[in-house]
């Protein structure tokens, strides 16, 4: 089976968990994003056909929400919080540390496909500032040095992707 056909078959299976109604578009796209770590073009076409929604509307929604990505994201998504509390507590230093270790800017993914870097406005854990979230795991009271240690654990495969 070709890669493209595989994506079409898989994404149809994901979509078919929902009734073919327009209001499920967002939910289906979220599931697809979770499955592939991005939204492949073939998957968007499949969903558009399944829901009888114009393809351009699917693309419009995919480009509207920050939670969706049109290019493959890394296995681990590092979200460095840059809300007010984290900013004051030195989130910029954390960000610089990650940029230096991984050589990527926010919004980018490492060449080995392991990490993506993002900044978020506030994750509501200001008491733990400065905070970073890697996949679904929260890391609080970080320093550049402690963040480096955590990243090394992920790089060494000591943490499982969630």
């Amino acid at each position, binding site marked *: 089976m070709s890669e493209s056909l595989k994506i079409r078959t898989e994404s149809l299976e994901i979509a078919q968990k929902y009734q073919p109604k327009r209001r499920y578009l967002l939910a289906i796209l979220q599931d697809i994003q979770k499955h592939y770590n991005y939204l492949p*073009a073939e998957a*968007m076409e499949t969903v558009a056909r399944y829901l009888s929604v*114009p*393809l*351009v*509307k*699917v*693309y*419009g929604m995919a*480009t*509207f929400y920050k939670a969706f990505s049109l290019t493959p994201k890394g296995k681990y998504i590092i979200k460095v919080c840059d809300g007010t509390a984290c900013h004051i507590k030195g989130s910029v230093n954390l960000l610089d540390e990650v940029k230096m270790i991984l050589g990527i800017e926010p919004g980018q993914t490492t060449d080995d496909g392991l990490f993506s870097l993002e900044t978020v406005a506030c994750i509501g854990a200001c008491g733990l500032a400065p905070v970073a979230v890697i996949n679904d795991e929260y890391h609080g009271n970080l320093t550049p040095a402690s963040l480096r240690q955590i990243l090394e654990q992920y790089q060494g495969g000591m943490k499982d992707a969630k």
Partner: protein
Amino acid sequence: MQIIINGKTYAANPGEKILDVARRNRVEIPTLCHSEALPGLASCRLCMVEVHEGGRTQEVAACTYPVTDGMEVVTDSEMITAKRKILLALYNLIAPDSERIKGLMARYHVEPFDRLQADAENKCILCGLCVKACEELGTNAISTLFRGTKKKIGTAFEQPAAECIGCGSCASVCPTQAIEMTEADGKRTIWDKTFELLRCQDCGEYYTTPEALAHVRQKLGDTVGNIEELELCDYCKSRRAAEKLKNGLRLNELFDATVK
């Protein structure tokens, strides 16, 4: 039922919008995103008016706000005029080349904002009228994409769209001529897709694409989808309609003469 606009009383019908009553009575309310054929967008906010109703005052978009009996509308209060000026000056920064916006600025004595940089390349004010036209008349080939400062109008994946039939509805409704549509050598190019053009069966001018004609036929169905007039340009269509009307009137004359 009656409504009062700027102190004068006008007749209105239930279900009508403030703008409908105002336009019918030549009361000026400026609009950019309004099209009689595609009403209800209310995105440009130029038609904002003041409404006094049931002891409350609010600012509403005249193009979508329904009339109620005895409602009082003010189209040129100090607040409305001031906001309209700001809106126009901002639209002028977004689409500095638009003649329509420049015309409205002159009409309402708006000074351009000189402390802000105009977006020289841009013509689109993101009102969404083209998207609505494509939904209603075309084939859902375009939509708003991205968000915030990157928001734009485009096709899926910003590639030539399979859905696009080259009807040009989007370009023709655009208030700022932001959608590029070029025609040369019997070909039309729009949204990076090129179409052959068909000739009008009467005058021989190019007038539409085969895809757009097929779409219209399909929409109209078997009963009227095959009428000859579909193969005519707008001008020849109106001319034929006028001729029919004229001939019809002549029949009435004949009828009158015979009966009398």
